């Protein structure tokens, strides 16, 4: 039982109450949740002391859901309703899943993202992921004894916009406030760098269950700067299992197995892979539905041979990342290994050979991402420690739009530091053209058809002019989560169209609401209660933030009237906060936010001046 805390007389117990925040590693194979407790990042275990939650979700006919070990145990018996490695389907269409045909699921081709038909109805990968996140949220709330201010969710660095958006949607659906999407190798670098007071250029090699990332980071005096990142969001430990599985089929002259047998042999293949990390050979046995018994020995040597080209597939992204960073192998001071698949000796050997040094494995490769994410969540929630650092991350893939002839015009190049904004002007092709369709794509290839299509929208109402006379400015803005927002504007008439790049791949807020309502755990009353609680939490945080800002800078940056206006909006919010009308609270929040825009800008200007040694910006003119 927790002890009650009593503060020293005269001191308030909690001048700034510690805000509960967590880091979540939503992995292909396993997921984890971690938090910072007493200044130390720790993984939160379940009631049985297990840190890793298998990323497996099973849907039952009575609409109940099993997540983790219980679901994993039944994957061979109920393969079609037991979803493993759902991360591979996030933000992906059916045509993206190439090898997906071998999987035991009933896929439904939906616009944007594939869906899965289960005994409990059609499920989107976002909903499946949300089930995993929900279990971790509840685990954290029980362990920490309160509701969470927010969470940092990690994503592979090489995830594109559609995959990131899907992850963020899943978190929202699980009732989590997303403080930030954080790239997995970057999270690992934080955990590693702070632990070792590292300085210099490091490479993070992250081979997870289904994704591969390589990030090159420069660590200097509390700044973590990602110089370049590369990877393959469809390459991971699962593929090594699959090689063993195919070998097993061949060895035993098997073909066209049913889903349960496929699942069973894949499970055996994974166990064999893990065995071969420590042993020279391993024996796989299984009883198939046909009555046939499998009993096959696999040696480390054979396994390495059959998986060699998978390992080699990770080398090309490494060379590209180095080239993009403008560095050579000799410039890399250390290599950090992340992800369970880096335990394989052939992977460690290949990385050591490539970099000419033994990689660092002193942090648990399964936990380091969650630990780093928790450290960042703690900072983002506003629980500042004395030691502060700055994280500068990048987008992994170029963003652009389609121009004439199906060609891609890049607007933001890959490895641009985020947040970033870039605008480019385009013009009309025909006389009298009054509309323009904008096709947003992501990728490095010249042909639009080789890139990922993110969104299509139309800018209408362009005044008719001769071809080439209209000036249409398209602005791309990528936020600190790596998510894109696009606006198009005809400069002469001011006709504007804005899209957050969601429609093709992401879920609309309405869809999220519908999914929340659909799920049996959320009756209408719960929805209301939850919306109210969320608005109340947000309102209190906002009031505290504005109060602090006013105390610090109100008198210096605002006149009496300006201060009074903000205080008026604060009073308005405080008044509705006593009610249970979440719509009214939301309106008052918006009003207070609007009332503080000019103040926020003045404060930012002050921060900028302070950064350059207290000089005022206007004094800096040469």
């Amino acid at each position: 039982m927790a002890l009650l805390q009593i503060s020293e007389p005269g001191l308030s117990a909690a001048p700034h109450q510690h805000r509960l925040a967590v880091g979540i590693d939503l992995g292909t194979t396993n997921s984890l949740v971690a938090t910072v407790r007493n200044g130390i990042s720790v993984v939160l275990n379940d009631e049985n002391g297990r840190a890793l939650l298998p990323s497996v979700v099973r849907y039952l006919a009575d609409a109940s859901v099993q997540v983790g070990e219980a679901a994993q145990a039944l994957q061979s018996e109920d393969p079609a309703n037991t979803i493993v490695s759902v991360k591979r389907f996030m933000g992906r269409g059916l045509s993206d899943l190439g090898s997906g045909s071998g999987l035991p699921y009933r896929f439904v081709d939906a616009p944007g993202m594939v869906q899965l038909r289960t005994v409990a109805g059609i499920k989107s990968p976002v909903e499946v992921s949300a089930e995993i996140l929900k279990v971790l949220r509840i685990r954290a709330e029980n362990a920490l004894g309160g509701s969470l201010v927010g969470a940092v969710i990690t994503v592979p660095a090489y995830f594109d916009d559609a995959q990131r958006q899907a992850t963020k949607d899943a978190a929202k659906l699980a009732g989590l406030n997303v403080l930030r999407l954080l790239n997995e190798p970057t999270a690992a670098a934080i955990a590693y760098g702070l632990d070792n007071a590292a300085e210099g250029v490091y490479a993070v090699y992250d081979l997870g269950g289904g994704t591969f990332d390589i990030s090159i980071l420069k660590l200097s005096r509390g700044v973590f700067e990602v110089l370049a990142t590369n990877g393959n969001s469809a390459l991971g430990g699962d593929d090594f299992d699959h090689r063993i599985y195919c070998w097993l089929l061949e060895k035993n002259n098997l073909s066209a197995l049913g889903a349960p047998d496929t699942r069973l042999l894949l499970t055996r293949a994974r166990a064999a892979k893990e065995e071969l990390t420590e042993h020279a050979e391993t024996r796989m046995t299984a009883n198939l539905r046909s009555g046939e018994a499998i009993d096959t020995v696999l040696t480390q040597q054979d396994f390495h041979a059959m998986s060699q080209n998978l390992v080699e597939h990770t080398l090309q992204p490494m060379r590209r990342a180095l080239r993009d960073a403008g560095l050579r192998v000799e410039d890399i001071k250390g290599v950090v290994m992340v992800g369970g698949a880096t335990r394989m000796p052939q992977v460690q050997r290949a990385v050591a050979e490539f970099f000419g040094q033994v990689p660092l494995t002193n942090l648990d490769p399964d936990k380091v991402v969650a630990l780093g994410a928790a450290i960042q969540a703690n900072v983002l929630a506003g629980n500042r420690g004395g030691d502060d650092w700055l994280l500068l991350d990048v987008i992994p893939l170029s963003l652009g739009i389609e121009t004439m002839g199906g060609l891609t015009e890049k607007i933001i190049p890959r490895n641009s530091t985020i947040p970033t904004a870039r605008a480019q002007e385009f013009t009309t092709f025909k006389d009298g053209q009054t509309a323009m369709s904008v096709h947003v794509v992501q990728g490095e290839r010249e042909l639009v058809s080789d890139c990922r299509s993110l969104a299509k929208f139309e800018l209408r109402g362009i005044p008719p002019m001769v071809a080439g006379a209209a000036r249409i400015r398209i602005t791309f803005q990528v936020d600190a989560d790596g998510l894109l927002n696009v606006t198009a504007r005809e400069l002469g008439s001011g006709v504007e169209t804005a899209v957050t790049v969601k429609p093709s791949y992401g879920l609309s807020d309405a869809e999220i609401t519908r999914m929340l309502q659909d799920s049996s755990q959320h009756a209408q009353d719960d929805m209301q209660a939850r919306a109210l609680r969320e608005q109340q939490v947000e309102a209190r945080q906002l009031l505290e933030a504005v109060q602090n800002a006013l105390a610090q800078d109100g008198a210096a940056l605002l006149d009496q009237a300006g201060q009074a206006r903000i205080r008026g909006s604060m009073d308005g919010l405080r008044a509705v906060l006593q009610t249970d009308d979440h719509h009214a609270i939301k309106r008052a929040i918006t009003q207070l936010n609007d009332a503080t825009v000019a103040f926020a800008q003045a404060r930012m200007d002050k921060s900028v001046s302070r950064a350059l040694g207290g000089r005022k910006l206007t004094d800096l003119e040469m």
Partner: protein
Amino acid sequence: MSVPGFQQDFFQLFGLPASYRLDNALLEQHYHALQEQIHPDKFSHLSEAERRVSMQWSARVNEAYQTLSNPARRARYLLSLHGVDSQEETNTAMPADFLMEQMEWREAIEEARQARDIAELDKLESRLQHELHGLEAQLADKIDIARDYAAAAGSVRKLKFMERLAEEIASAFDAIDT
């Protein structure tokens, strides 16, 4: 943008003199100092208004840093501050000997690509780097000393050609790798 600092040019933003020659270490130091104050990570627990302003500022500082830390972009930007357009897309009248050299470069890169000769590509890359440094030194003289911006625009156009060669070398490396 009503923020006063937003009207400042990128050099003023970093508190550096508007010259082509630049103290790169100081630029980076000031870049980090600015981001430490304004990055969205420092505002995530604050109000929506502060988060939005932070994102706009942080994006602008990133853009400014990308511009000033890249030799070609820095030159282009400096010329634009002096009201000179480097005309890289429109003015293609380059000296004949320069164009001849370009053709030789392209042939050499293409040959190395065909032969999958990584050592040769490495050699070409370091030769190109050497040439780029030469062009940058010329640019520094033309912009900072002679203040001959029209002549500098010519050098920026050459730089653009050299950048394209660098891209071709990179894509040749990629092609050999695949």
